């Protein structure tokens, strides 16, 4: 799977062709990708592949863990509240989805709820793990671009990570 093959229609030196339009500007660093030897290209492709697999793995772990936690919480909710089950009568879901419904929405109430084995708190914990997954993915991205020795992309990703973490502090504050 060579990167620039296929229908590109520029069989010779596609790499040069790509670089040509950006000769000046950007502090003269438009040429930061030098012509690489075949071994270097292969090594680079292997690194890129490793990064793809790492990011995919982070997402998969986040998804699996959050689903497991959410399912546990949901199970506990029904186990502790027999009225939620249809056999026990006419308890409506609307009592759990109205404006006045109470459930943990701060870290202290969440911790309290989990400590008491409350299903709702455990579901919220699972949802928080789900929310943290993309942020963790960005953090892995920063490390990946450092590993690929690609400072501009590492800085870009680091900026995204800082904004994301900042948004959480702004939300909490």
């Amino acid at each position: 799977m060579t990167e620039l093959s296929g229908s590109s229609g520029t069989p010779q030196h596609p790499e040069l062709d790509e670089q040509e339009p950006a000769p000046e500007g950007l502090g003269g660093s438009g040429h930061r990708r030098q012509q690489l030897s075949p071994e270097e290209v292969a090594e680079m492709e292997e690194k890129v592949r490793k990064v793809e697999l790492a990011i995919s793995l982070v997402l998969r772990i986040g998804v699996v863990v959050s689903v497991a936690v959410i399912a546990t919480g949901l199970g506990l909710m029904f186990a502790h509240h027999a009225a939620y089950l249809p056999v026990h009568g006419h308890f409506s879901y609307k009592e759990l989805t109205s404006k006045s419904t109470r459930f943990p929405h701060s870290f202290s109430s969440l911790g309290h709820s989990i400590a008491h084995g409350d299903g709702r708190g455990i579901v919220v914990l699972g949802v928080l793990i789900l929310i943290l997954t993309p942020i963790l993915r960005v953090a892995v991205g920063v490390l990946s671009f450092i590993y690929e020795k690609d400072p501009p992309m590492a800085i870009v990703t680091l900026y995204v990570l800082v904004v994301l973490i900042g948004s959480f502090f702004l939300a909490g504050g």
Partner: protein
Amino acid sequence: MTPLDFVISLALISVAAGVLGSLIGLGGGVVIVPVLTLLYHVDIRLAIGASIVSVIATSSGAAAAYVRERMTNLRAGMFLEIATTTGAVSGAYLTTLLPTRFLFVFFGVVLAYSSFATFRRRHADAPLTVSHDRLANYFNLHGSYYDQAEQREISYKVVGTKPGLALMYVAGLVSALLGIGSGALKVPAMDSAMHLPMKVSSATSNFMIGVTAAASAGVYFARGQIDPIIAAPVAAGVLLGATVGARVLGRVASKTVRLVFVVVLVVISLEMLQKGIFP
């Protein structure tokens, strides 16, 4: 309807939302919000909280597969996240300044235009082979992917990073302001402005929407909009649906993905116009 019936029926609907969302790069909020408000009569604030959960679930569920299969343009996605996250954070501050009704009408019109622009490109799907875009060249945002439907490797060049960044900023802003529509602007930005192939646009949008949503999810959690009895079936159902949907995208033709996207975009734009004109 007991809570158990509610959880089971909502989980099944969420599976469908996950399949659709992962296929066309949207978060599934387009299905979840109307279903919760119109069918289950859930408070709109809780419905929007569930929609954010659905967006992150679609994104993580589908992107795990898309990244592994090299359908996502990782570099372009991460590069454009500069604009979406900045937009999402600035949107959180503008919420009180701008009238929501005006925003709905405005973005309803914007999305109606993007659906037209996306539809118009249905015959002009050939990837670019040359790019004179300095930013795209500097950050090397070009890429290639293996198209299962056409059974060949397709390499493509990226152009229009500046309009792309501008549109991504707006996409982040909209998702923070209105709680919906982040993917609806991302796909046209990549498809029409930056000339990424349709499937790559969809997969990369999928990759990005999770991060945009995560930027505002903290606020939704703190405001008490993440109701566990709603979030649990939505998260589980959407994750399952997105995992299934991610297997479909590779196999269907680009044109099919485009047409499904256009139809959904028209629905979203009508939904927004309705909210703005007859709230």
